[in-house]
Structures are given as structure tokens and as C-alpha cells.
């Protein structure tokens, strides 16, 4: 069965880019969440194998999502990447402290993302 990847990101274009980059790797089922709330709703419903979240989202921020996932026994072991932007080192640092497994800094290359996905999902 194809592995499931949850992408929480409020920019549709970013989601599309991430999706097409991952799809190039092989058969993954990609679930899109346009905000943190959607992600919260998807998590108990789907057995997700990897979460990729943006830090800057309008309802709850990515750090809050990381804290939620990594402090919950059900999701704790799910690998999680955060996507941050140049200049937000402190927020990224906090994400790692909260348990994020890896981070990407925009703009990132397709290879960076693909390497990470491969590392955690194979």
C-alpha cells in the first residue's frame, strides 16, 4: 500500500510543488491540508506515515502542530519535517526542540526534499 504523506501548508502553490516533487519519487498517497485545523482533523482519521508542515499558517502555527503530534502517543513516532523560511532560525530551532525530525528552508531544491522523504520512508 502506498505510504501516506500529510502536507500542511496554506499556499496552494507550495502544496502543488511539494506534491509534484514527491510524486516524482514513486507511489505515495498525498493528503493536503490547507491549514492546521484541517491537519488536526485528518490525523485521527488517516494513518499517516509522514507529516510535512509549514511553520507559518493562519490558524495554529506549525510549531503548535509539531507539539501536538510529538506529545501524542498515537502520532509520536510519525516522522515530521518542518518548512521554514530564511531568517526564521529561532522558530526552526524551536521546532527541532519540540521533536521535528528534519527541516527544510525555503527555497529548497527538489533533491533536498526527495532525499529527506527517501531517508524517512524507506
Amino acid at each position, binding site marked *: 500500500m502506498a505510504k501516506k504523506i500529510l502536507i500542511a501548508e496554506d499556499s496552494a502553490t507550495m502544496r502543488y510543488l511539494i506534491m509534484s516533487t514527491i510524486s516524482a519519487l514513486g507511489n505515495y498517497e498525498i493528503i493536503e491540508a490547507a491549514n*492546521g*485545523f484541517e491537519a488536526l482533523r485528518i490525523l485521527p482519521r488517516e494513518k499517516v506515515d509522514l507529516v510535512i508542515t509549514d511553520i507559518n499558517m493562519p490558524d495554529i502555527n506549525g510549531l503548535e502542530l509539531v507539539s501536538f503530534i510529538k506529545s501524542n502517543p498515537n502520532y509520536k513516532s510519525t516522522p515530521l519535517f518542518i518548512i521554514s523560511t*530564511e531568517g526564521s532560525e529561532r522558530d526552526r530551532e524551536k521546532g527541532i526542540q519540540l521533536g521535528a525530525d528534519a527541516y527544510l528552508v525555503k527555497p529548497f531544491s527538489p533533491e533536498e526534499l526527495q532525499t529527506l522523504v527517501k531517508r524517512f520512508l524507506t
Partner: protein
Amino acid sequence: MADQTSSRAIKDFLGEAEEILEKLNLDLVTLGDGIESGEGSPDLLNSIFRGAHSFKGLSGMFGFDDISELSHHMENLLDSLRLGKVPLSAALIETLFEVLEVLTRLVHGKGESEDFTFDVTPQIDQINRHLKGDGSDRDRLLASYRIDPDILKVLTEYEEHRLLDNIKKGRNLLRVKANLSLATFDQELAAITELLKKEGEVISTLPSAGDIPDHIGFQLLVGTTISPAQLAAQLQDDNIVVDSLAASAHAASTGRPGTTASAVATAVSAPAVSGEVSASAAEPARIEASEEAAASLRSISRTVRVDIDKLDALMNIVGELVLSKGAIVSLTERFKNEGQNELTMELQKATRVLERRLEDLQKGVMEVRMVPVAQLFDKMVRIVRRVSSERGKKVTLDIRGADTELDKLIVEDLSDPLMHIIRNSIDHGIEAVEERLAAGKSEKGTICLWASQKGNHVVLEVHDDGRGIDPERVRRKAVEQGLITKDAEISQEDVYNLIFRPGFSTSEAVTELSGRGVGMDVVKNNISALSGMIEIDSKVAIGTSISITLPITLAIIKALIVSVSGRTYAIPINSVLETLMVDAGTIHTIERREVIELRETTLPLLRIADAFGLGAETKAANQRLFVVVVGLAEKKMGVVVDELLGQQDVVIKSLGSTLAFVRGISGAADLGNQKTILVLDVGGLMGEVLRGESSFYV
């Protein structure tokens, strides 16, 4: 990721980038308005920052270095602004507007060619000047208050700043806990947040796994002036628990440096301490969990962006289908006339079903093309802001009916004429502050921009409370420009007509704006091209009002097919009020114009045969005439024709630029039987008639 971007991704980028820039522009206007009243709202500032942040991230992904470089600097400036490192000032807002303008130009440029670029260092330098003198004692301040380190752990840098700001203001820090159902938590949370916002600021919203299945827990960190008990009373819900995290008495008044702080210091660079505050909770934050934010997000995930060309292609196909249907309908009619039998009955039934379905399809495609005029009005907000500041005038824009819908293409084509009208209003209409005060008017001028739907038409009105159009001045200018003779007598109507004449301008000096060489004649032509009508009314010292009446859509219309002197024309049915058969004897002449009495009003007539010079032999010969009463807005007119041939759906096509000069015709239509006929431009014809010109070819 630039190397793998497909053209679809680029298009997506352009769409999203434009959207973000539009939103930023609007938010900046609001922020600018708030300067006088003190600092901008944290929500607004944060929303602007977020916009800039997404924009930067997006442009970086596409390898547009110029855009991402400039937006990176803009983001820095906004970040410093929201973190309170630089003060909000009019100059700073100006800089931000300029940066947005440049970014918009770059984005549009990339739309034409991905290699498009220009130098953005002047703007970057400008931003850096604002950023200089950034001496923040934020960390020192944060360290001197006693806050649970767990709280700081999930706060973004911005949220830390908000937390600090609340403590500085001596507010109570409260924690609100709620267990909400997984199915409805977003609405419930939005309702709670709404209530909390009335009492203070929601600094953070942290989700946590609930103990109850299918539920999710939330902890909200709130800065407020009221006590936990008071807040609980406000919330009126036993399932929501409110407790105190740090009371203002402890936090603000003692302000002593935390002694154990350094020992507990986490990876967070701001040192923090667990003091007498017992509750420890990790509270991160997002400020805008409001209903509005939730709604707009939903729309992001449920909306598809479509190229207008694709919709046009779809509309064309529907148009062709409508014509094919017309052919089938007329075939069915012929069968019916040749004798009723079972087969013709069946055919008739099937045709009727086809007709209905086709109508649904047509309606559906039409609806997709409809967009609220808000898109257009938003642009005008910016124009007003910019032009009024350039001209040193104070202007408020009063917008109403922004949700009125119009065909996307019409909205696009309205942009330039509307912009010109509004510029004119500010340039020539609204007086300078001193002049307004001297005239006993309020300091700020008002421009109203109203839209409303009236039947099949949309009316846009632009009123200003400026100095109005001075007939004497118009007259003088018209004489100077040789449009009228020195001693010609002109009526109020004539004054307005002169304004629409090509080349007419009253501006004494050529300003940057009027220097563009666009006159009201161009505005009028643009509106006519959209089958619309424009009217002016003005009172000296009171103001000018311009109203534009437009059809809701242009694509497929029902038309009344008429014949005049052996030629066939189409009249858009949406402007037809009724048709009459009159006796030639009932036509009177008033002031050399033909009129008839229609239910106690006088209806001016236009004979198409005369207007188009088709030969007058029909006039005398025909004792009975058909009059098609057409109306736009409040005006009515009768069009005299020889015969009414019936109603039909037609697809209007433009005549092209070579024939654009032909007056009275708005386009050509195909009748479905390979016959092409001309469509009358009702708005244009009415304008001519009401102005008293009965023939176009003199």
C-alpha cells in the same frame, strides 16, 4: 525547485502572487489609516507580515531572485515592525507601498517573460534606512519577567513579542482550556476566540490530545484586563476552564529578574523562569483564529483558478450549441407546419428538453464567469490612496455593493475607465483642504463608489462632493479648443456632451495624470464597447455624479430581431421594455424631434432608417409602424422599425478595431442560418437621440 517548474506552476504562482499583493495593498491602506489613531492592530500587522512572508517563500521557490530579494527585505522590515523594533510611521507605509508597486510590476513582468527584471536596490536601500537604529531591549525585558519556560517553548518569535507586550501593559495572562468535538472544533474555537477577543488578545492556541475520544483539547493563552472569574462568566460554559498564568500584579509591578532563570534556559534564546505561577502550559499562538480566517482558508482549498481564455472557449462552444439548437427548433417548427404526427410530437418534446438543459448549461457557464465588482473596487481603493496623496488632498472612499456580480471580462474592461473617472474626481473634483474648509465643507472629500443590480443591468455610480463641473469653464475651454464658436449658447446637457468630445480637457496644467492623454471620450468609448451607457450630472460647488449602466454579461443574449428597409437587425432584449404598433398619425414633432405619447409620458423616437441613411421611402408609405421601446437606467426611447421578426438567442461578436468607429452598432451576430446581422448599440443610440442628433452621417 526552479528547474522543474512547469508552466502550470508558473501560472499558479502568478495568480497566487497577485492575490497576496492585492491583499497586502488593502491591508496597508487600513494600517495607514490607523496611524493617526496610534499603533496598528497586532492582528493586522501580523496578517501583513504573514502575507509578505508567504510571498517571499513562494518567489524563492521559483528562483525569481529579484522578487525574493526585495520581498525578503520587505519581510524584515515588517517583522521589525510587528516585533516593535521600528515605529510605525507614514514614511514607512509609503516605503511599503512603493515596494508593493515594484513587486507588482516585477510579477506582471514575469508573466510576460520569466527573464524580466530590473534593479530593486533603491527600494532595498530605502528599507534599510528604516531598519537602522534598531536597538531593541526586548530580550532583556523578556528575561526580567517570570514566565513559565514551557509557555515560551512553542511561541514563535512574534508571539513572544505579543506576550511581552501584554505583560508590559500590565494585563493578566489567563489560560482558557476547552475540550471540543473533532467534527466542529473549528467553528467552536472561532466562537470562543471571538468572545475572548472582546476582552483582550488571544496570544496563542495550542491543540492537545483530548482524554475523550473524538475530541481535541485546546489551550488558549489570553492577555486581558479582567480576572479569570470574570472571563469564565463571560464564556458561560462549564466545559471551558479558565485559570491564571501570571497575574499582572506579579508580573508587571515586581519586574525582578528571575534568579533561577538561567538554570532553566532552554534552547529558546529568551531566558525564562517558572516563578510563583503554578500552572505550566505550553502555549503557542496564532492570533487570527477568527471566523473570517477560517472562511477564507476554506475557500482556498475549494477554489479552482481558471484562465479566462478557457472560460471564453467554453462560452463559445455553448454559444455554438445555442445556435445549433436554434436550427433544430426551426426545423421542428417546419415539420410541425407540414402536418402533425407522432414523430413530430416526439421531436418537439425532445427539442424542449434539449432547450431546457441547454439553458441550464448556459446559465451555469455564465455564473462561473461572474465575479464580484469588489475586485475592481479594491483596485480603486489603491488609486484613491495614491492619487490623493500625490495631489495632497484628503479623500475618503465610500464603497457599497461590492458584492454585485458582473462578467469577468466586463470587470476587467471597466478597470481603466473607472480608474480614469476616479482620478478625474480627485484631480478636478475634490478641492484642496483649504478650499474645502473655506467653502464650509469638511476637510476630507468623499468619493462614493456604489454598485447595484437593476434587472439585467448593473449600475455603477461614482459621486464626489467636490466643486462640480463649472459650465462657464467648460465653455471657455471648448471655445479655446475650437469645439464651439465663441457665442454659441449651450445648455447643461451640452456641457456634459462637450466633456465627452475627443481632445477635450479642462485641466489648466498637464499633471502627471491628465498628461496621459486619456480623455472622457475614451472612457465613453470603452463603456459603449461594453454595451453600456454613461451619464453625468453635476452641480457647481456640490459635486459630480457619474453613472455607468452595463449589461451583466455580453456573451450570449436574447435579441429581438427586427427588419428595417429590408435589412435585419438585432436589439438586445435586456434593453427592450415593450413593443408597440402605432399609427403614423400619432407621431408629433416637438422641437424638431419626433415623439409619441406613451401613457402620459413623451417618448422620443428614433427611425433606424433615417439614422443609418437607409432611404426614406418607407416613412411615408407605412401607415402603421412598429416601435420598440428601449430603456437603460431611467431613460427611454422608441426605435421605429418596419417589422418585428421574433426573439432569438444570439452570440454577439465584436466588429473588430477597424470598424470600431461605426456608431450605433455594437457588434455582429450569427443567426444560426449562416446569416450575419448587425446588433444595435442601444446605449449609444440613446445617447445620440437624447442629445438631439438624429443622424450620424451629416
